């Protein structure tokens, strides 16, 4: 017996609707508890302050330091939110309920990536202005390009980070393991992003940073698809 069996009371699973519902659920839970978001934003602001006060403006101009600061903070604050992605599923084994339902594995992964992406962007909404403020960066219309770079980088970080969070949730010392596994993966994200940001901040034409943006885009394309494909292997069957 094959083919779909029509039902009047149930609808078939929908990849997008399921992913979106899971993303909303994760974000709602984060909104209720707010613990990870607060930790990440407080960390980001503290880090900016520390970088600012250990910096000698006469030795290094702001333009040279700010991109590095921005993207280091991006990486570590992004990591802070990732563990809770699967922590909330495993606390009371709600994950089993999700896995046993008709929702596909791909939808589960995509939903969590979306939630982590929104989380990272929200943290950056605080961190970016903080960096601009503390380093007296000139703010102009070119900042939309920086927002675009942050968007691209956040997507890559969310995809890879969510996948490794799924892996780490199976281990002891998940919180220690996650940075160790993921940081090498963030290298082709953070270096291009920092270089492209430097191009924008120095007022150079964006064409100078094109190569870096292409690396970011390629990384996103390759890793978002690859992570969706390997995600089911992180689940015990």
């Amino acid at each position, binding site marked *: *017996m094959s083919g*779909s*069996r029509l039902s*009047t*009371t*149930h*609808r*078939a*699973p929908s990849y997008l609707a*399921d992913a979106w*519902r899971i993303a909303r*659920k994760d974000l*709602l*839970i984060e909104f*209720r*508890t707010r613990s990870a978001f607060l930790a990440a934003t407080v960390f980001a602001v503290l880090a900016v302050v520390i970088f600012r006060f250990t910096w000698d403006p006469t030795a290094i101009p702001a333009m040279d330091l700010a991109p590095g600061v921005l993207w280091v903070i991006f990486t570590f604050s992004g990591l802070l939110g990732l563990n809770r992605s699967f922590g*909330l599923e495993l*606390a*009371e*084994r*709600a994950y*089993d*309920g*999700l*896995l*046993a*339902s*008709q*929702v*596909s594995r791909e939808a589960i992964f995509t939903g969590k990536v979306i939630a982590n992406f929104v989380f990272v962007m929200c943290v950056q909404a605080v961190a970016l202005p903080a960096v601009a403020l503390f380093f007296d960066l000139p703010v102009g219309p070119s900042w939309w390009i920086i927002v675009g770079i942050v968007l691209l980088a956040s997507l890559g970080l969310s995809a890879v980070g969510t996948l490794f969070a799924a892996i780490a949730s199976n281990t002891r010392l998940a919180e220690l393991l996650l940075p160790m596994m993921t940081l090498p993966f963030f290298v082709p994200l953070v270096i291009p992003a920092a270089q492209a940001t430097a191009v924008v901040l120095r007022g150079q034409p964006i064409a100078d940073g094109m190569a870096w943006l292409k690396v970011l885009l390629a990384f996103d394309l390759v890793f978002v698809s690859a992570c969706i494909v390997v995600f089911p292997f992180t689940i*015990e*069957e």
Partner: protein
Amino acid sequence: MQSPHVTAAPEGASASGPALTAVALVRAFGGRRAVNGVSLTLHTGACLALFGPNGAGKTTLLRLLGGLLKPTTGATRLHGQPLPGDAETRRLVGLISHHAMLYPALSVRENVRFAAECQGVINADDATTRVLTQLRVLDRADTAVRYLSRGLQQRVSIARALVHGPQLVLLDEPYTGLDEAGAQALTDALGALKANGATLVLVTHNLSEGLALATHSAIMQRGTFVDEALVSPSGFDVPGYQAKYRALVHEGLA
């Protein structure tokens, strides 16, 4: 000694064939066989009460029947479809364990509604209200789950598992932590499901609760069935069964 092939076909079962069949199921973790050759056939309306000591493999068996695990060897079929199955087959299953399987930060209604929508229930709100009423937790519908007592959380977990009207309900010690009212609500809900043609597998340590709904019972030890029995609605020799259990398993049964 070969493990008996447990068959549960209640009187008046439909002639359309068994609901759930498992043939020579084996599941190994590394070198250890948690389930070691289990075969069973359950017809619609059957309720199999599964007893056994800790470590017998009952939870692993339930996870295999629920499609959460793949067998190392052997095959399972639910309504003719292989398990682990496609989306529509997975929708037929409801799983209840002694873990709450809930999101503590969300409310009762949000948890159950989420489960309903994930299972594709078309009128999720109505279904949610209905099942919460059935389990008698509607008055706490908007409370966050983490503020509820263990017993109430268990009722919500049961509501979550039943909201989409599953055809196969797998229960792993569901009565743990339930007070009398909760236990009665659960028994009533399961009875209603059974009457509607669902198939149940109930793992429990409590004899009276297990036998209240069961049409068949089996004892599992070290990964296989060591005994099976029919549970007649007219009467059941409880002390006799307890003695048999103790003899087989060298432990007591409540």
